[in-house]
């Protein structure tokens, strides 16, 4: 058991900007002075100039210019699968934290009773609310509706959804969750993963009948490794979905080191090398529309902590495929 105290200045040496960053904006950066463009989310207009109001990646759809922030709260969309935590039991409804700007609402009428019934809820059910779901409980649910103020109303009246038990929650930024056909996955490493579009990811071992000690321990180690892998992806702003999780998980198996907190940093240096290769390839292929970038230092100090690599930023900016799954 040795304790390693790293020095910030040691990290900094390797942080000389390697690539010119394209397409990434800090708050206050000029995006365009072209007055034919329309300003979208994440931008504002001063004297006819379109200026970024968040730190993120600029996207253009025809005339519409938006800046997608790298770190943000979840803005709900109807039909999304989300994972939430019960904050409060109220009359006929629960208040749920779903990583959005406002607390979400789960109506008593939009849950399924523990017995699986979908009957009309009675007054007795209202009294029993805390026995169904109490403060701190985690649920998976669907976004049912979005109110005018942005608050989300949830819906979990299906046997797919409901209370989550025996597992662990990983929180990442909702921007890096990839929208997929299904968000319920049984990963090949015997782990059940529910990837909520709000950036909450639930990992739990597959239920086993009379599982022996060895399986339990192995599953726990796998979940710990997966958790660190997901955080590694999040730290490097790589999109998260089942394939990317499994790719990084398999890459991590090479390391004999038992999963530990520093582990994912070691792993990331590997994916960065891959990312550099991809970037070089991309660079030859295309010339991005935006040239002449502001000082990398500004972005660096505003946006990222020391461990983030520019190559990865480039990756997002170019929406390059993931390392490992090429």
């Amino acid at each position, binding site marked *: 058991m040795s304790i390693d105290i790293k020095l*910030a200045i040691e990290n*900094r040496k390797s942080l000389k900007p390697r690539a010119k960053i394209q397409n990434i904006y800090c708050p206050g950066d000029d995006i365009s002075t072209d007055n034919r463009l329309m300003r979208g989310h994440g931008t504002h207009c001063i004297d006819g100039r379109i200026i970024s109001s968040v730190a993120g990646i600029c996207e253009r759809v025809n005339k519409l210019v938006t800046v997608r922030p790298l770190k943000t709260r979840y803005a709900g969309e109807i039909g999304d699968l989300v994972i939430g935590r019960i904050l409060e039991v109220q009359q006929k409804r629960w208040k749920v934290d779903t990583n959005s700007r406002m607390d979400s609402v789960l109506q008593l009428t939009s849950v399924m009773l523990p017995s699986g019934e979908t009957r009309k809820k009675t007054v007795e059910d209202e009294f029993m609310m805390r026995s169904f779901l109490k403060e701190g409980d985690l649920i998976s649910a669907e976004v049912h509706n979005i109110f005018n103020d942005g608050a989300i109303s949830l819906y979990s009246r299906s046997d797919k959804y409901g209370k989550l038990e025996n597992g662990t929650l990983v929180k990442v930024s909702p921007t890096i969750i990839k929208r997929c056909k299904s968000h319920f996955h049984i990963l090949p490493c015997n782990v059940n993963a529910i990837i909520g579009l709000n950036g909450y990811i639930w990992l739990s071992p597959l239920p086993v009948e009379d599982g022996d000690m060895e399986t339990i321990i192995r599953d726990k180690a796998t979940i710990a490794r997966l958790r660190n892998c997901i955080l590694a992806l999040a730290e490097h702003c790589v999109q998260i979905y089942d394939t990317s999780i499994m790719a990084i998980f398999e890459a991590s198996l090479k390391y004999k080191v038992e999963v530990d907190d520093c582990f994912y940093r070691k792993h990331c240096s590997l994916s960065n090398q891959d990312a550099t290769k991809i970037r070089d390839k991309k660079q030859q292929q295309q010339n991005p529309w935006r040239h002449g970038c502001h000082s990398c230092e500004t972005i660096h*100090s505003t946006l990222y902590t020391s461990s983030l690599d520019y190559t990865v930023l480039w990756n997002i900016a170019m929406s390059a495929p993931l390392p490992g799954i090429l």
Partner: protein
Amino acid sequence: MTDILSETEKSFIIEGIQHNIRIDGRDLTEYRQLVLETGVSPNCNGSAHIRLANNDVLVGVKADLEETKEDTPSEGRLEFFVDCTANAAPQFEGRGGERLAYQICTMLSKAYSQPGTMDLGALSVMAGHRAWTLYVDVLILECGGSLMDAASLAVKAALADTKLPEVKVHQVENLLEVEVAEDPFATVSLDVSRAPVLVTLSRVGRHCVVDTNQEEEQCALSQLVLAVDAEGQVLFAHSPGFLAADNLEMLDLGSSLGAQLNLSLHDSLRREQSLLHNNPGLKSERGLFD
């Protein structure tokens, strides 16, 4: 600070700890990643910024020439002040963080008031008249479990970084005259080799866990905070909860971990010094948050 865990999440964590697998894959006695930087604030005599996983603590030490106390005429003083910013947690807004700040502050001042931890005599400028008072300001920017450990490491690093100007005080006809050395680089450093660090041990189930993250902290039955010096000597112990039966075992673990922490800190501080000495350019690029 973090949300309340559900019962099943807690049991998942506790069960894992029984098998020596924590949710982040660490061993029970393993610390998370620590990143240290000293000399971050030019306005202070000494400063340090430490990150322990997502704990973020900034410490500044300011020195002031003050009149000595009557009971300790040839000693300086150390004053601690801890501020939990609302950036760390929304609950800290207004007076919300005061309780935690007070706890950390008491622990730090208790740890440093143990005899032999700091040579307070070295702070004396003119016995019976003037001595340095070091105001140690601890700013909690982000917290993520085991805050005390991070704060104490940062305090020690900041004290190691502290440079006091060379001054002389003369007495001219009942008036004290302070004379500062002409060379601005003529400074005195403090000896922190015996300064303690705090080690928090948590009891989860039947096991003893160090450096708990916020989730694990919620599962802990009790906590034991130890002030340990570089030789592994436990200067004092404080348990906010009830004292567990096999405390001796915990003390042993705490003392060896504390000694380790102290040694690694000394080592890192030396490494930083030599790095900066060999490559002074590093200093000019320094900024607090990159």
